[in-house]
């Protein structure tokens, strides 16, 4: 299933993470993410899905291994070079992680902070074309224009996650990471958010890596499923190929089937 190395947007090689020495949470993971579509990572809680995603944009520092992205090794970057790489990676969070006291459009414009001089950020002097794009994105993720000046803490969970997605898209990223984007949402809203993520991924051809607990949603929206258990990849293939036996390997036991 892995794409040719030359076409891959992201190549993870032998990635290892130990929070405590000798107890790896990620055991030498190797993955290639190619140029399109939505890839879902499934697996039980505590299996390192979140750690894997956070290693990619270095919210967590990996212990060993390589993360090749746009000609550099993310695992070894620091300072300005790391910030430049992060500008190209959008992230969507389980609890949305919007800045609650800022307006919707300020949150969306945060996606441009990697390109903005500090005095402009302090005075909110964003370039006109960025502001225009932010309005476009607010509408593109399904919110009305009038939401732009409402404070983020006045929004519902589904609306906040839409703003979170708009913020990620505002970065014009080459890759989107989504860490449990539907886990804080009701079932109906979860479907809407997954729909939006897969639509944006396809239409803007941004490969998207999604951690998700809901196997049904993963099957429905992902073009590829990666099953993890105990810090290692045990399934990597299309949703159609994911059998009950595979799920048993991933989650252990069979009562849930």
């Amino acid at each position, binding site marked *: 299933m892995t794409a040719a190395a030359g076409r891959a947007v992201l190549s993870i090689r032998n990635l290892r993470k130990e929070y405590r020495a000798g107890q790896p949470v990620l055991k030498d993971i190797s993955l290639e993410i190619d140029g399109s579509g939505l890839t879902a990572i499934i697996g039980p809680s505590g299996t390192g899905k979140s750690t894997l995603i956070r290693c990619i944009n270095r919210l967590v520092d990996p212990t060993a291994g390589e993360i090749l992205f746009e000609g550099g090794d993310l695992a070894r970057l620091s300072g300005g070079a790391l910030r430049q790489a992060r500008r190209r990676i959008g992230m969507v969070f389980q609890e949305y992680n919007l*800045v609650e006291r*800022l307006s919707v459009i300020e949150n969306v414009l945060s996606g441009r902070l990697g390109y903005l001089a500090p005095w402009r950020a302090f005075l909110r002097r964003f370039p006109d074309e960025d502001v225009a794009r932010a309005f476009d994105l607010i509408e593109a993720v399904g919110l009305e224009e009038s939401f732009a000046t409402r404070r983020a803490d006045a929004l519902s969970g589904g609306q906040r996650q839409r703003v979170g997605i708009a913020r990620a898209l505002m970065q014009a990223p080459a890759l989107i990471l989504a860490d449990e984007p539907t886990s804080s949402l009701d079932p109906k809203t979860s479907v809407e958010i997954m729909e939006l993520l897969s639509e944006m991924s396809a239409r803007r051809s941004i490969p998207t890596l999604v951690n998700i607990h809901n196997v049904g949603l993963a099957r429905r929206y992902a073009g590829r499923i990666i099953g993890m258990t105990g810090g290692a990849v045990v399934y990597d293939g299309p949703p159609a190929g994911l059998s009950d036996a595979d799920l048993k390997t991933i989650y252990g036991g069979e009562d849930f089937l």
Partner: protein
Amino acid sequence: MTAATLARKRPPAFPASWTSRLAWSGLALYAVYASSLMELTWPRFLKGLENGAKFLDRMFPPNFEADKLELIRDGMLESLQIAVLATFFGVLLSLPMGLAAARNLAPPWLSWGARGLIAVLRSFHPVIVSILFVKAVGFGALAGILALIVSTVGFVSKLFAEVVEEMNPKQVEAVRATGAGFLNVLAMAVFPQVMARFVGLAVYQFDSNLRNSTMVGIVGGGGIGAPLFTAYQRFDYDVVLTILLVIIALILLCELVSGRIRRVFQ
């Protein structure tokens, strides 16, 4: 069976704490001992009451003569200006100081350095700091302003650092993940979370500075304190009362205004 249950000895629901009994009786004994040492006797207290009655009697009526009022007005204006300037510069300094002392933003060497400095600034009462500055820069408002800047930085930056440490790290993480540099993270993730409470602290400190600015004059730091002290020494208790009334009026007025300001910034 029921009788047996009742008869069974249960542990006491409110067990006696001998440590706390001992501590309380120790404290009571010490209070008695210290009072005897200070010659706090009933006759002495009655004599004090008698003296207090004479003092109150000489305060009334308050003195509203024109030349006194002019003196009081100038003193109060100077006190107000001391409070405003000390708050402005003190709060301005507290902003970087508080950020430097916040352990979730600054590296350990910086936060420990800032914390140490804040501890030193906080270790003296404003009166002692005022005396130091009067000796260092001479009599007048400058000494008072500098002294109150010290206490402002000590108070505001310590509490501001705590506010920064209590902010939601997830919001900061999300903005950092966009590739934003440190200053941009401050502008769009840290300040929006902490500014309302920073303004609250600054306004609170202004109230406190206004109170203290009436005091720095007693040791030569400018403001209403000097005329107040002089009036005490000359036994002009009617002038003392006028000054006290004006101070009360000004403080109440400022509490009213600062309450409004705090509500706006919620």
